[in-house]
């Protein structure tokens, strides 16, 4: 049963005086799951069959392939290497070793010594996780978890190829040519789409929620008055409604880059990248930087504590969605007024997820904005923002409104 106070009693209940927002900076004292790929070191990583270092992802098969001997292999799925267990047993905050707090003093530039020739090679982990030695051409990759947060617990490799992503972006933009900004139409080249591994936190949770409010059931509908003053009125019964639900959530996915998590559509189009979620995160594999060869990446800059408010917000929304069928009888609707979330346990895993991204910078009225068309690198779901030609769109709207107006005048003329 619910443990919320009645809706009308909130002002007198001690719970009502509690802080509305959860303590975002609550201390987290919980175990860490070791997700390090101990079979790999920073620097030269060789093909297990021939020893070459030219290794990259083969998206159509989801495997790593040695470009020298064509040997193919995969890292183990993360789900197979860590104990998932029963989510209802989750307690406290658990996180992967790749999701631990970022050392803000740690440099994003990592210098590695090439095992082939001894040269020093610098990798900017804010954008990529490997580099080719400019002397001996060996490929060096960052595989050890580093304090700057650049190495996550797992990576979900691209499955959609560059050609397939181009096709989807062409189709999406092709449907939106008529009122698109003319410069966008002229400069659109789908081959410029780039594969980016975006940073996310993937979260399991064990939670309870209580929600309270009022619901109304119509008891009678009738008309009152006569002639021009006739009106429909209703009688209804009003109920106090309280609901409680215990639930677990598996693989809720939240952006772990502060910039990407800003979905203010008046200043950016990050909501486009958010819309192509979800991913089949259960197929993510243990970290191997060779999966990123040929792609760019964005580094995580948010810790678990930063993401707690967003997590709780989304969990409350999920809880409210779970309650809909339990208030079906209230045919005049329900007004929820109070809500409470209890987080019994969460498990956080940092993950790189694959996104094909087409970007176009557009200026309008002195205000610039980057418009994205994004393709989910696993499912192929596509969403985008195409800059609009105001001249064309306003012209079409005026013409459309004009046609309706002519018809309206014709009806009036006929009636009179």
């Amino acid at each position, binding site marked *: 049963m619910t443990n919320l106070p009645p809706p009308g009693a909130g002002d007198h209940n001690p719970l009502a005086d509690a802080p509305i927002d959860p303590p975002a900076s609550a201390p987290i004292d919980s175990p860490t799951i070791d997700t390090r790929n101990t079979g790999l070191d920073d620097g030269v990583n060789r093909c297990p069959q021939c020893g070459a270092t030219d290794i990259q992802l083969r998206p159509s098969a989801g495997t790593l392939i040695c470009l020298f001997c064509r040997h193919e292999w995969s890292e183990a799925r993360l789900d197979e290497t860590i104990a998932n267990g029963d989510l209802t047993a989750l307690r406290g905050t658990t996180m992967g070793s790749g999701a631990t707090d970022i050392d803000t003093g740690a440099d994003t530039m990592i210098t590695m010594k090439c095992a082939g020739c001894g040269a020093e090679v610098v990798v900017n982990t804010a954008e990529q996780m490997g580099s080719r030695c400019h002397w001996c051409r060996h490929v060096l990759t960052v595989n050890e978890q580093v304090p700057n947060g650049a190495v996550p617990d797992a990576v979900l490799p691209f499955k959609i190829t560059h050609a397939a992503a181009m096709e989807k972006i062409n189709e999406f933009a092709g449907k939106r040519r008529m009122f698109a900004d003319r410069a966008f139409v002229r400069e659109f080249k789908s081959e410029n789409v780039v594969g980016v591994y975006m940073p996310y936190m993937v979260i399991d949770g064990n939670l309870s929620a209580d929600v309270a409010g009022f619901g109304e059931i119509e008891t009678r509908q009738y008309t009152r008055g006569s002639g021009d003053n006739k009106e429909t009125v209703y*009688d*209804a019964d009003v*109920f106090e409604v309280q609901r409680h*639900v215990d*639930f677990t959530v598996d693989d809720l996915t939240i952006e772990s880059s502060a910039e990407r998590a800003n979905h203010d559509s008046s200043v950016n*189009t990050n909501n486009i990248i958010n819309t192509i979620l979800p991913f089949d995160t259960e197929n993510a594999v243990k970290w191997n930087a060779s999966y990123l060869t040929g792609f760019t990446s964005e580094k995580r800059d948010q810790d678990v504590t930063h993401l707690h408010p967003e997590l709780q917000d989304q969990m409350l929304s999920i809880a409210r969605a779970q309650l809909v069928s339990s*208030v079906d009888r209230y045919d005049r609707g329900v007004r929820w007024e109070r809500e409470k979330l209890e987080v019994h346990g969460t498990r956080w895993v940092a993950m790189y997820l694959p996104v094909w991204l087409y970007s176009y910078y557009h200026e309008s009225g002195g205000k610039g904005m980057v418009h994205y068309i994004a393709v989910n690198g696993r499912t192929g779901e596509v969403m985008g923002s195409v800059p609009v030609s105001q001249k064309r769109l306003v012209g079409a709207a005026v013409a459309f409104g004009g046609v309706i107006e002519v018809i309206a005048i014709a009806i009036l003329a006929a009636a009179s």
Partner: protein
Amino acid sequence: MIATLLGALAADDGGPAWILATGPLGGGAAYFGFWRYYRNTDKSHNFEHETRVTAQPVTGNDAKVDEITGTKKSGIDGDNRSNHRQRVQRLG
């Protein structure tokens, strides 16, 4: 003809004026409909329904507290049953 239309506009039942307003309203709706189709500013991940959730049976209480008679409103004020992302007073 024009005098007839002006006469209709001046009619006090509001009918002809409403019909004449359909032109501007239709034009405005076309503008915003197409703008949204191109910009997709209203789109986001539907995590409420696209995340794997296992819920125990919902429990709770329902208690009749009042009766309304003769209201012109066809629904409850502030209905947020389907607006899961609208946050309300947070307890605890």
